[in-house]
């Protein structure tokens, strides 16, 4: 009797342990596969030159630059807006129907598939506002996509600031906005930064929202204004993998592109983790 439950436990634990290693194994396999195949392609030339020979040669510089612009554009839009929105819900409104409504809407916004953002960006920014396929249209679309991430992480960061800090500041005669500027934001800063960095990772990897708002199939020259189209790393990888002129010949470059993409995203994510750890320790 007693034996059976012990044996059950042994079996169950073995299974779970195997599951754990299986999943980790699969994830490492993906990572390893990309790194293994991509590392030999990476060189200064690959990073800093434009594609040649129908995208079967050369590098990916325009795509890197494009992704960089999109990161800048979308964060310039989403960060101030998202942070202010979070300040509003945490610091200004009481727990009423309005905050509830905002929270539900934020959650919904977060759950909308990225391709729907793409559709929306296309009608609003590209067509209705007449931006055309452009950095600004793509940035605004991506900005909306990360808005909920920014709002949520900022909210959590603000909520983590102890009430006494605010009281202390108000007691010294500071008004609300001064308290927020001088006391609340500086305290919440590391956590806010973490969220922001995570959303940068997200922006650099998204493909669907930029398909119809900015991404160029092949554009070896760099953009001159925010109304130009650009190439972008994730879309470039998609093109190389599925619809280049010679898919087989483009394969090595696809691996290289995937590796650069993963590198950027994982760099951002690890940075976020490290910053968080750093500040947690200092507390």
């Amino acid at each position, binding site marked *: *009797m*007693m034996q*059976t*439950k012990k044996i059950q436990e042994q079996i169950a634990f073995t299974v779970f342990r195997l599951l754990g290693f299986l999943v980790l194994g699969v994830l490492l396999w993906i990572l390893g596969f990309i790194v293994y195949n991509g590392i030999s392609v990476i060189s200064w030339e690959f990073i800093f030159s434009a594609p040649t020979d129908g995208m079967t040669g050369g590098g990916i510089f325009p795509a890197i630059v494009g992704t960089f612009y999109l990161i800048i554009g979308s964060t310039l839009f989403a960060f101030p807006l998202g942070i202010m929105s979070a300040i509003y819900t945490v610091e200004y409104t009481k727990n009423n129907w309005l905050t509830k409504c905002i929270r539900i809407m934020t959650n919904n916004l977060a759950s909308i598939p990225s391709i729907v953002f793409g559709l929306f960006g296309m009608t609003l920014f590209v067509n209705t506002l007449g931006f055309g396929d452009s950095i600004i249209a793509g940035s605004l679309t991506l900005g909306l996509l990360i808005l909920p991430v920014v709002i949520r992480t900022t909210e959590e960061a603000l909520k983590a600031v102890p009430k006494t800090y605010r009281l202390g500041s108000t007691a010294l005669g500071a008004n609300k906005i001064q308290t927020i500027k001088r006391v609340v934001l500086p305290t919440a800063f590391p956590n806010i930064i973490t969220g922001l960095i995570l959303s940068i990772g997200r922006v650099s990897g998204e493909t669907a929202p930029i398909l119809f708002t900015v991404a160029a199939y092949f554009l070896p020259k760099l953009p001159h204004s925010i109304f130009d189209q650009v190439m972008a790393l994730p879309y470039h990888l998609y093109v190389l993998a599925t619809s280049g002129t010679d898919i087989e010949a483009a394969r090595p470059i696809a691996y290289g592109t995937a590796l650069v993409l993963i590198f950027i995203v994982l760099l951002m994510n690890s940075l976020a983790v490290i910053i968080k750890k750093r500040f947690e320790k200092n507390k």
Partner: protein
Amino acid sequence: MIETKNVNFYYGSFHAIKNVNMKMKSNSAIALIGPSGCGKSTFLRLFNRMNDEIPGAKLEGECWINGKDIYTKHTQVDMLRKNVGMVFQKPNPFPKSIFENVAYGLKVNGIKDRAFITKKVEESLTAAALWDEVKYKLNKSAFELSGGQQQRLCIARALAVSPSILLMDEPASALDPISTAKIEELIHVLKQQYTIVIVTHNMQQAARVSDKTAFFMYGELVEYSDTKKMFLAPEKEETQNYITGRFG
């Protein structure tokens, strides 16, 4: 009969129990008192080996229950825990019905006979003085009960597996005075059948419910004697100070 022989206990490098020798008679109530952090809970958890769950913890010395060393390689920990029930500081019923809470211990110990389980549940709830209050709502969630009722449910849950020893770690500290009185009354009844080891920070409670009292300080057993003697004429000065409230 519970006996510890030269027991030392460590959390990593922290020496939590220092060379304790103690004997506890069956069918009696023993109170463990002492300032917070002196190792009462740690000492209590030795007897159902709940300390095993803490990483980095280490035991030296021997613990005997009813003539058996409970820390041998062959000890079946689950059987030991069936025999040594435990009631915790805060009521901690499972997110299940009242019935399922009491039946839980039976089921995890491999008992499948419905009729037996039903009988045992009623007996245990009766023994815990809760049956009359819950007999018409056995299928309701345990969380619908009041705090005091939940704690008696936890006692019933412990009794259901027919233990001979009941460990109670400040079982009334989270309850209101009326519920506390009910629990104390219950302990009075239960100690005829069970050996009860109860940790409490409440001097009056120790005086009211226990036959013998042990006073701990900094992990050491300072004094151990009949409760009456302990509270009327303690031998050690530390004990005197603690009991009269000049310490801790």
